[in-house]
């Protein structure tokens, strides 16, 4: 077992990031899609704490177990995710893996077809917010299992 990492998180940072998540979720106006996006980003970023938390929230919101189980393979599970959700998930993946290079035009344009400018700006905000939580939790190796909806 490796040495423990800091669990410190500046209150101002936590409050600002909570405000970011809340504003983005509100502007997107689709709580179920928001959870799918946050779970998918957390899968890609390997954030155990975030997966534990958002799977619990999704289940609490009544997201079907089948959708949660197959989310990591959404491209192959065409019947479970509609076009709007697929566009949001593709954008989530592109924005999460920036190190491999940019957000492709095709991915951005597909998202812009399904989301209006304001919705899209908030979706981008939400994907950024969960990526931020992922970094704070993985960086400090915050243990999963402590979250109660």
């Amino acid at each position: 077992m490796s040495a423990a990492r800091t669990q410190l998180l500046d209150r101002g940072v936590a409050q600002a990031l909570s405000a970011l998540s809340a504003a983005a979720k509100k502007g997107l106006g689709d709580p179920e899609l928001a959870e799918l996006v946050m779970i998918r980003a957390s899968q890609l970023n390997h954030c155990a704490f975030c997966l534990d938390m958002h799977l619990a929230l999704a289940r609490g919101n009544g997201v079907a177990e089948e959708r949660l189980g197959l989310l990591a393979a959404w491209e192959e599970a065409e019947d479970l995710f509609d076009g709007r959700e697929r566009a949001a998930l593709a954008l989530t993946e592109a924005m999460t893996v920036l190190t491999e290079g940019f957000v492709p035009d095709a991915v951005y344009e597909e998202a812009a077809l399904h989301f209006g400018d304001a919705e899209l700006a908030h979706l981008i905000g939400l994907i950024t917010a969960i990526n931020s939580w992922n970094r704070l939790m993985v960086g400090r190796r915050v243990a999963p299992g402590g979250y109660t909806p």
Partner: protein
Amino acid sequence: MTTPTDDTKSQGYAAEVPVRLNWSQHAPEVYKAMIRLETAAKRGLDPALYELVKIRASQINHCAFCLDMHTKDALAAGESVERIVQLAAWEESRHFYTEKELAAIELTEAVTVLTDGFVPDEVYERAAKHFDEPELAQLIAAITTINAWNRFGVTCRMTPGHYTPGQQA
């Protein structure tokens, strides 16, 4: 004063690519929260170190707008051209940086490339040797924050070349 982009127009360079989305106008509350996050995250961090962190994360995330902003801000704050140029190859040019800066740059890379898997213990522990606990927590928050700006910059394809140093400081 002409901007670099104005200069290049007469030299046969490619045309400037338009912005995809003015996200801050379409999501003003999200933008306000980002400004709050930036203010909170940088508290207690050495500004010169934070610029190096911002430049390195923006390089890895390929954020042209962020590179334009942070290289200009770093230069204006007195950072050397050499240290900015060598940053992309810091592993081969360690003698340009302090051990503390190197530990922060290494942590920046690990926290930025989460998709390859976690933040290695040896990277975390090296950073923990050079930064006390509250400072380390701020450093992680600062790396997180520049990663967030990078995501808006790249996804919305914000245009580089028009930044004036100090504009966002």
